[in-house]
């Protein structure tokens, strides 16, 4: 087992899958010679050549549209959109085709396509480089929306995404690309898509988060434990959609209280779906209103003020305390 950051572990996932399966091709802007602006595809071009690692022209719709054609033909394209903030150039292709060709062709075709894109804030980036818009994709039937929270689950989820027969949007929280390292086994490891994970057991409150928000959520939980003896159960969604709420329901039926955390804007965001599922299925177990700690419904600010918009452990702790006080 090697200690890896998430850039390395995602790279490993692609490399190992490509070795096994020549249907897999990588495509995107600067993914080849440059190895991707975050180096996630670093050196893959040296190993697999320009036929399998394609530096495409600068056209997102074309990357996804062409990849759909390739997928229908029988390849498994793994596309990089340089920043999730530019993935909106492709929604018409995703909504109209990637998500529907299985249905439209009544099963003859399917679209095994992975779209990787760095997402989220916290790296002092330019405009359009910090947003979290996973809701667009989570709300679109026929596609899966996955967000890892660290090197190890990132690698395992990416392998699963690549092997999935249907289109998967894979947002990589750029704030954790190099934030920490984890042991990542050389041998194959997968995590089934569509299954949130219980990452810490607890009894007083359930905390639900994903991606880069796992870090402040865990931090908040630690502090709550240490300073106030509050024991939080923590769930990492991993797959945002299709959302399997079973584990969340189970947890809240035990704790009676919950806080949901995401960077995405509050309104019509992922938190709303989670809270609603709890209302639908665990209403009588809820002892207090479920809280959400999220980005605001604003244009993402330039970096000098981005912290003001981003959930942090202080805001999360406050939310938990309020939940417990009532």
């Amino acid at each position, binding site marked *: 087992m090697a200690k890896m950051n998430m850039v390395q572990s995602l790279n490993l996932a692609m490399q190992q899958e490509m070795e096994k399966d020549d249907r897999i091709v990588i495509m995107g802007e600067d993914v080849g010679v440059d190895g991707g602006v975050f180096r996630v595809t670093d050196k893959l071009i040296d190993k697999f050549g320009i036929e399998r690692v394609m530096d495409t022209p600068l056209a997102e*719709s074309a990357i996804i*549209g062409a990849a759909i054609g390739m997928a229908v033909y029988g390849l498994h394209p793994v596309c990089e959109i340089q920043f999730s903030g530019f993935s909106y150039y492709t929604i018409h292709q995703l909504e109209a*085709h990637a998500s529907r060709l299985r249905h439209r062709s009544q099963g*003859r075709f399917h679209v095994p396509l992975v779209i990787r894109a760095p997402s989220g804030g916290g790296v002092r980036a330019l405009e359009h480089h910090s947003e979290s818009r996973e809701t667009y994709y989570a709300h679109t039937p026929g596609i899966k929306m996955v967000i890892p929270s660290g090197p190890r689950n990132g690698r395992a989820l990416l392998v699963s995404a690549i092997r999935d027969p249907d289109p998967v949007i894979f947002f990589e929280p750029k704030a954790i690309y190099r934030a920490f390292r984890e042991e990542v086994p050389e041998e194959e490891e997968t995590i089934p898509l*569509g299954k949130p994970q219980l990452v810490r057991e607890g009894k007083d409150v359930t905390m639900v988060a994903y991606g880069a928000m796992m870090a402040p959520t865990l931090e908040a939980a630690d502090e709550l434990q240490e300073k106030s003896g509050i024991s939080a159960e923590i769930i990492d969604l991993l797959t945002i959609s*299709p959302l399997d709420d079973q584990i969340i329901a189970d947890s809240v039926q035990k704790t009676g209280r919950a806080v949901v955390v995401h960077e995405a804007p509050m309104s019509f965001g992922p938190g709303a779906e989670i809270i609603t599922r709890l209302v639908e299925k665990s209403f009588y177990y809820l002892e207090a209103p479920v809280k959400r700690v999220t980005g605001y419904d604003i244009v993402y600010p330039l970096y000098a003020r981005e912290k003001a918009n981003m959930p942090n452990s202080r805001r999360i702790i406050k939310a938990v305390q309020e939940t417990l006080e009532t």
Partner: protein
Amino acid sequence: MPRKEIELPYSTEYLAILDQNGVVDKELEPDLPDEFLLKLHRAMLLGRRFDERMLNLQRQGRIGTFAPIKGQEASQLGAVAVLEPSDWMVPAFRETLAEYWRGKPLESFILYYGGYDEGGLVEEGRNDLPISIPVGSQILHAAGIGMAIKYRKEPQVVMTFFGDGATSEGDFHEAMNFAGVYQAPVIFVCQNNQWAISLPRAKQTHSKTLAQKALAHDIPGIQVDGNDILAVYAAAKEAVDRARSGGGPTMIESVTYRMSLHTTADDPKKYRSEDEVKKWEEKDPISRFQIYLKEKGLLTDEGINNLEAEIENEIQEVVNTAEKRMENVDPQHIFNHIFADLPPSLIQQREELIRNLALEQKEVDNG
């Protein structure tokens, strides 16, 4: 170091072989076997008659909105007739005849436009995408299929269809650019039928031709008389041969005319003159091809009559079976083919639907 003109690798050409009176340019006439010519003729005629029947079915409320192809039979058939079965075809939504030629059962069209998802089924072995309604979007899929063919080093090509209106969509240019960069075996067939619903070709773009749009990407582009099946065939043959031998993509602008409605929801009287339609009726692709075949001694009036009867029967049978199939609406079907495996949340939703249906049935049963 003056101001000078830059020489470009391509210019834009025009090709026509069989004129509207059925006169053929002997030098350019493609050498096609008689049976093949007759097969083309039969398909064109069937395309025309099926179109008429579909319009009829729609007017009777037996199917929903659909897009007639009348007038564009040569334009699409001439191109697709060049393909091998193993090649790929990516249609827009006005390629009924091209799809039929490639093997799509007529029944599927009726089911599809009758509102049944089953009509979208692409049978194993037919390498065609289902129709694509969002204008221009499918052109990129063809670029991707071309790239995949090249990756696999297969001796295939892919042909995609789109309209004059589609050339205004960014996806069209992105696809041409990708195909150019990767020198993918893609044949871009623009059926310029002069109208995008109510917008005439002249207002769609300032450019003199649509074929010249290929110049932006250093792709060979040719404009052909799209009502002349020989010209369309010849241009497509050249393009397919080039693509198959590694020569990269081609764009063909097939100049034709949408003689009927945009779709059955459209009323062309709002925006175009009967005179214009009349003028184009004289250029009908079928009648000129019939003159040609008669002069070649391959066809007689009697033969045409027999064929018409045969086609009518064929269509009637298909309508019968399709309507039979349409009697059975199992609503649960809407949950099929969403994902390879239905996730728990969708299983729950399907269960809800089943419960609702049962309730409904009970209400019906109880009167």
